[in-house]
């Protein structure tokens, strides 16, 4: 994460009003810098990355599963807001993912693991992009990919729902 860094997120967690105001200002500046960066690279991003950027709002989505079968890397999420749709992100990666734990001190981590903030940038390879994601449990995922496909899944069967068929 270049803009919405774990360090800045930690500063936001201090509940002293002056510290909160300062951290808010830094967060806002980070948002403005990210906005400018996105604007400058938008025309060079792969169409699928642009589509993901425009369509998905994954903040607070619960992470159900993360896995890979190279060159594919997948994340399964359940949206926080009703109707709690299940979303699948399937990346065609161009290099192994980087997955770091412990980027946020335990006292500022939440559970279950949720998607918090993400950033998109150009990848090192031509026609690729980089997607960095910061999760509530302090994990950070960085993917370099050529494509990403987003799917909204309707639940047919969910083991976590007592094994009941909830939709058909």
């Amino acid at each position, binding site marked *: 994460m270049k803009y*919405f860094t774990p360090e800045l997120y930690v500063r*936001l*967690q201090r*509940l002293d*009003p002056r510290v*909160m*105001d300062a*951290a*808010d200002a830094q*967060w806002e500046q980070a*948002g403005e810098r*990210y906005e400018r960066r996105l604007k400058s690279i938008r025309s060079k991003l792969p169409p699928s990355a642009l589509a993901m*950027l425009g*369509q*998905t*709002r*994954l*903040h*607070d989505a*619960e992470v159900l599963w993360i896995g890979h079968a190279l060159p594919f890397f997948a994340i399964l999420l359940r949206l*926080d*807001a*009703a*109707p709690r749709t299940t979303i699948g992100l399937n990346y065609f990666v161009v290099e192994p993912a980087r997955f770091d734990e412990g980027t946020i001190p335990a006292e*500022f*981590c*939440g*559970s*279950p693991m*949720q*998607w*918090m*903030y*993400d950033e998109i940038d150009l990848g090192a390879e031509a026609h690729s992009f980089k997607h960095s994601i910061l999760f*509530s449990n302090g994990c950070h995922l960085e993917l370099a990919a050529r494509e990403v496909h987003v799917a909204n899944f309707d639940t047919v069967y969910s083991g976590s729902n007592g094994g009941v068929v909830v939709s058909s």
Partner: protein
Amino acid sequence: MAANQAAGGDAAQPLPKIHEASRATGGSGAVIKGSEIDEAHAVIRRQRGEDVVVCGDNLAANRQTAINVELAVGPVLRQPKHSYSAGPQALPHFQQKNAAARRT
């Protein structure tokens, strides 16, 4: 109590108002404001995992009220506004550290 102190510093500023809340679907991140409730009712709602929203002209007082409500339920995490991840109309919010995401 902290909410009253925060807002009471400026006699011209009305106290924050707490409302029942729900979240709009469709990715806007918007919060739909419902009936006005008091702080005790807000805490009960939060304990049930339901959302509330704090409204008013004094942003610092709103924030402190939200902290008071959320801390009455348990340890909190603060989530700033983030248009790309949460939607263009999403609000900064507080949520429980160890629960499914619900917010004040």
